[in-house]
């Protein structure tokens, strides 16, 4: 197997970061707020126990990180902001306001100007919702996950279905643009239970829905249960049935599926997430955040202490830098882009690499077309209905 040429940051210390990395056009800004009251049973994102003192410490470091990048990068424009975590809704509205102010002191905002805040129904009080709006947030992403009490407990969520319903009713009053996350294919979940949760979610008429099948990641509570034999992974046939049911229900309600797991009313697609799928640059700040300037990937230390210490010495908290070969860039552009229902435009591919998609991947495309997994014409390469269910079989074909 090829190993990516990940450069460890200490070796690059002598090198100026701007020799390796540069953003030359507007990019998406991601901020990782690594605090949670309680870690969910399925979650493998980096997070620390919530504590006001630590949040202050973190925000100071974050400010430093923003300032360092503002000096370093040639592009000073951002098009989206996404505050994720962790549980960023644990931040006080005043802290959030301060954070956005810092961002706008360093960068100017152009384009869609979408500012998303990830919220956990359990930490979202009525007053907070209004205050977030006032602070400048214009999109919320709500980790509802399920409307079934037993399922929420199984996932280790702290909220109840009733709490989620109340929060949603409040959110609707202040936000026209918000997303609702749901998880399906839980061990023991029936098709009917999934349908119930989904229909409940749709009854609020959210402009955007993200649906994920449960992925049991290494090192999580669920992973331990799986290894102990206490839970069983869901059969992929049931998983597919649930997924297809959701697509049908949402289509009937006027949602358009624009990505493998994402559905929106026209105009409400997540602009920030589109940046990832359209292979555009983004800068990630905060511990464990990942960045991509179009040619190079780099990521921060997944440790709050190291992150803060480095910044207190005016050093970037970058743990590693991975420059991508052209071939790797091509493959990533395809496997990220194919996640979109509209797929990848052959013109964009040519504009970026100066080569015809059909020439670079002739054999792969023939094979995949033959299997009925992709549809390919002069303008577009995209997954077929069958291909959407078997996306990995397609994506891996393009790996170098």
């Amino acid at each position, binding site marked *: 197997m090829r190993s990516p040429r990940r450069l460890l940051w200490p070796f690059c210390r002598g090198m100026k970061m701007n020799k390796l990395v540069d953003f030359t056009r507007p990019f998406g800004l991601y901020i990782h707020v690594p605090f949670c009251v309680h870690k969910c049973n399925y979650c493998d994102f980096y997070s620390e126990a919530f504590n006001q003192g630590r949040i202050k410490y973190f925000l100071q470091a974050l400010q430093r990180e923003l300032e360092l990048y503002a000096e370093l990068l040639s592009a000073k424009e951002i098009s989206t902001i996404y505050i994720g975590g962790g549980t960023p809704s644990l931040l006080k509205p005043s802290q959030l306001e301060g954070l956005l102010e810092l961002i706008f002191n360093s960068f100017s905002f152009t384009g869609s100007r979408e500012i998303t805040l990830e919220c956990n129904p359990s930490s979202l009080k009525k007053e907070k919702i209004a205050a977030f709006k006032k602070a400048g947030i214009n999109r919320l992403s709500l980790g509802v996950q399920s409307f079934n009490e037993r399922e929420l407990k199984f996932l280790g969520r702290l909220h109840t279905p009733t709490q989620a319903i109340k929060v949603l009713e409040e959110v609707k009053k202040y936000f026209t643009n918000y997303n609702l996350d749901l998880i399906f294919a839980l061990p023991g979940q029936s098709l009917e239970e999934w349908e119930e949760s989904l229909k409940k979610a749709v009854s609020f008429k959210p402009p955007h829905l993200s649906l994920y099948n449960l992925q049991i990641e290494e090192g999580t509570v669920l992973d331990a249960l799986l290894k102990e034999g206490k839970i069983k992974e869901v059969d992929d046939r049931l998983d*597919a049935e649930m997924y297809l049911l959701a697509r049908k229900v949402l289509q009937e309600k006027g949602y358009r599926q624009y990505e493998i797991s994402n559905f929106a009313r026209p105009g409400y697609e997540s602009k920030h997430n589109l940046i990832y799928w359209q292979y555009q640059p983004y800068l990630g700040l905060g511990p464990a955040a990942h960045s991509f300037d179009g040619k190079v990937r780099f990521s921060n230390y997944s440790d709050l202490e190291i992150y803060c210490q480095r910044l207190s010495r005016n050093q970037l908290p970058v743990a590693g830098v991975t420059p991508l070969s052209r071939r790797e860039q091509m493959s990533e552009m395809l496997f990220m882009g194919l996640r979109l229902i509209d797929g990848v435009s052959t013109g964009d591919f040519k504009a970026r690499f100066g080569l015809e998609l059909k020439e670079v991947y002739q054999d792969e495309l023939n094979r995949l077309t033959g299997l009925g997994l992709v549809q390919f014409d002069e303008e577009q390469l995209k997954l077929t209905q069958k291909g959407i269910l078997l996306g*990995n079989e397609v994506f891996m074909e393009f790996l170098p």
Partner: protein
Amino acid sequence: MNSERIRNFCIIAHIDHGKSTLADRLLEYTGVLSEREMQEQVLDKMDLERERGITIKAQAVRLDYKGYELNLIDTPGHVDFSYEVSRSLAACEGALLVVDASQGVEAQTLANIYLALEHDLEIIPVINKIDLPSADPDLVKGQLIDIGLEIEDAILTSAKEGTGIKEVLDAIIEKIPAPKDTVDKPLRALIFDSYYDSYQGVVAYVRIMDGSVKAGQRIKMMAGQKEYEVDEVGIFKPDMQRVESLSAGEVGYIIAGIKDVKNCRVGDTITLAENPAASPLPGYKKIKPMVYSGLYPTDNADYELLKDALEKLQLNDASFTFEPETSEALGFGFRCGFLGLLHMEIIQERLEREYNLDLVITAPSVVYRITKKDDGEELELDNPAKFPEPNEIEKIEEPFVRTEIYLPDEFVGQVMELCQENRGEFKDMQYVDENRVKLIYEIPLSELITDFFNLLKSKTRGYATLDYEFIGYKAAKLVKLDILINGEVVDALSTIVHQENAERKGRSLTRKLKKLIPRQMFEVPVQAAIGNKIIARVNIKALRKNVLQKCYGGDVTRKRKLLEKQKEGKKRMKQVGKVEIPQEAFMAVLQRDEDE
């Protein structure tokens, strides 16, 4: 060196009786290597040998002791490699017979003693591992007397602790005869081993029987009739060391820019082009392989690489044969013949490790004799895929072996059952000592080469040892069991089974394949058939959904790794028709079926 002061010897022993450790001590004592330089078991050069704790290839080394030149030629101990042993023996005048003081004489010890006696070697018995609490040297001496060896001078050693090493060295000088002084005769050098070096070409390990040889001379391979100019001659200490010349009685190597491995066969005789010997040395008896299987590159593009690797391996392992074959399912590959299952595994591992090849190996088969109905024509077939239709066959005969199984008597019941299940015919049972038993069975070789040996080991907690010899062919009611995947016969999966077991084996094989073949994007039926009659069927359900659903957050590297892992798994599979079949599936017949 005056041949009076040369001694050529080898060490013969049953596997695990301490041969390699004793060799190490001899090297250490004579200062070939300081203790610090000693890596354990220096003579086992291959990684594979060290890992498995067995010697596969013969190796040579020169020791200097009391003004004598002692050449040690190491030999493999396993039953599959007796051919190698006989090669090494032909280069020696004497042998150390190492017997474990706690285990006593074993099947392989006997086999080796007879080989040594056939070559007129002086045998020095060495009773090793006397440091073990369970050591019983007197009992072992008794066993050796029974065999007919003189044991007054048997030496007691503990190679592990280094006791008795000096006595062994002295005995080599005193008892093993010096080689004959024939330095004035025309050169005759016996090639007893060789390997291929990418810079120097073939390095031939030789024992000079007559005459002498030095760099610059023109030599001739007596079998191949090809001539070469000698670049270098040298000795092993244990690394290669160039010397002026090699003469009668000595052991060393010759490098002569031989690039084509076919022209330097082990067993051939080297002579001088100018003054050739009248006749070559007696070559080795060509041993016929007993077990055959197909070797195919996973990636068809590697065919030439595989061919090249096989040629190089065969250079120093003439007991293994190969010829090109084609399989409908697997494409172009080679039908390879091996001395036994271990031999097959070793070759396979060496190909994968040393030549970095990804291989598909088909289940091993024996050589069947078939008489056809119409014209009475007799065929010898080593590949089930090549069998004629059942209605064309008058008679099938299969090879039988006589097995000697040594085991503690408490396991006798279970082992007899195992033999019976594998169509074994009971011949004899003897107590070799108070609680060790020798069981003799005649068993079809085809049964022995599936997982008989593993089952034997597991049923006796590893205590049983097995030796076997070919005794001849017997007719049996055999049928070809075909496997159909997705409706098509996969020729590489066909096996020959006994009629009575056919259904059971068919069911078991389809079940095992269902476990081994990953789900495809469509439903795949797996069927077992005899002729046109389907006798078992299972379905591998279609893969419905395989898509990384949660893919946001900027960590693309991790997603890529996940895809890379899935892709890597596929690379090791062979595309047969529309179905991707993993390498293990072709050996499914050898795997234990838990439901059985």
